């Protein structure tokens, strides 16, 4: 600051400012603290962070079981030298066992109901719909990843066509998911897990028994598999949307009841 500026500053400094009220300052400190703490509560988080957060709540046993299943399939495929007819049968058994991948995820999706936590979860920071949507997304993507790995290794180790392997793996899987999601969108209770387990067991039993009937897995049957794949895929998409929306309806009703009660 040069002499000229200092002169102006000295001139302006003649006008002093009255001291502030200590009480007002303390009030500001108190309110600022409150605003800061409220900000922590209402802090918005991004989609990625929300999904990461939800991944931590999914039990480790889900990841370990799915990894174990995939590893089991891979070891069985790569370690043992099956002849072509045996290998084909092993692949068909993989196809029949693919509902197990879905089965691992469903108890996690249903844990709010099986542990009687839906009432608490529905009134916490994130809506039940968001929580279930996040769980469905995480578990769905994990299942898809597992199936893709099995598909890649299976087609690399056998003469089976990729398209047919996709059909053999995804039709039983889709069918199981359709059944479990139908249960989930209509029955929201601790019993849902048992129903899903029963559906999965039924699908596995049906496809294991089908795997012994060769004509269902020949080129001539591909058309039927294709139709089943498309039908299950469409139904699955509809059921995912319906299940997702059903959480909103269910809790909107609960909210209405609680408002009347108050």
């Amino acid at each position, binding site marked *: 600051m040069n002499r000229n*500026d200092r002169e102006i500053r000295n001139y*302006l400094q003649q*006008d002093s400012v*009255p001291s*502030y009220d200590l009480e*007002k300052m303390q009030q500001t400190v108190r*309110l600022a603290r409150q*605003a800061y703490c*409220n*900000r922590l509560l209402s802090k918005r988080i991004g989609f990625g962070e929300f999904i990461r957060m939800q991944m931590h709540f999914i039990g480790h046993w889900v990841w370990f079981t799915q990894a174990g299943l995939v590893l089991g399939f891979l070891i069985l495929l790569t370690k043992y030298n099956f002849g072509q007819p045996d290998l084909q049968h092993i692949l068909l058994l993989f196809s029949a066992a693919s509902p197990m991948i879905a089965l691992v995820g469903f108890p996690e999706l249903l844990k709010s109901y099986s542990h009687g936590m839906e009432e608490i979860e529905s009134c916490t920071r994130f809506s039940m719909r968001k929580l279930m949507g996040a769980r469905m997304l995480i578990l769905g993507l994990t299942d898809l990843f597992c199936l893709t790995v099995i598909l890649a290794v299976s087609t690399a180790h056998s003469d089976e066509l990729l398209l047919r392997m996709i059909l053999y793996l995804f039709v039983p899987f889709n069918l199981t998911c359709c059944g479990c999601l139908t249960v989930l969108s209509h029955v929201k209770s601790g019993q849902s897990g048992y129903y899903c387990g029963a559906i999965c067991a039924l699908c596995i039993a049906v496809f294991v028994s089908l795997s012994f009937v060769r004509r269902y897995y020949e080129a001539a049957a591909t058309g039927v598999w294709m139709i089943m794949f498309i039908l299950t895929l469409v139904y699955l998409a509809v059921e995912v949307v319906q299940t997702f929306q059903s959480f909103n309806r269910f809790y909107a009703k609960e909210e209405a009841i609680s408002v009347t009660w108050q």
Partner: protein
Amino acid sequence: MDDENLIRRIRAGDADAMDQLVQKYYGLVYTYCYRKVGNKEDAQDLTQETFLHFCRNFDSYAQRGKVKNYLYTIAHNLSVSMMRKSMPIHLEEWEKEESHNDVDQFEAADSIRKVLSQLPDEQKDVILLRFYQDLKIKDIAQVTDSGLSVTKYRLSQGIKAIKKLMRGD
């Protein structure tokens, strides 16, 4: 404790650090607000609103410059919107304040306020931040959201106008 440390603690969720920051800068922000609005009550309210705004939007604070400058920026923007809404500043309200003990001092303060009130708002902002808050020109440019050369120009024009008014032209 330095600002960087305080901000780090606040980011980690330490509410005591926020208390310390408010206490540290309350006086400075209040002084600036008083110069802007001209009366104690409004200045205290504006200061409070500045800190509340800072706390509510703390996540968007990128810590690119000094905390002090960021607070001045908030205070500046809030005072601008406050003045836009209504709030004319009355010289009579200034006169009621108890800060001036003797007649000479009161007259000097009165003439300074008259001088400042004749300046355009942009020039007045630059003068206040430069001579009362001791900010550097680049910091003033940041607070007032204007370019460095524009700020320099406003400062020189403001100084010229003050000198002219000081001489009583």
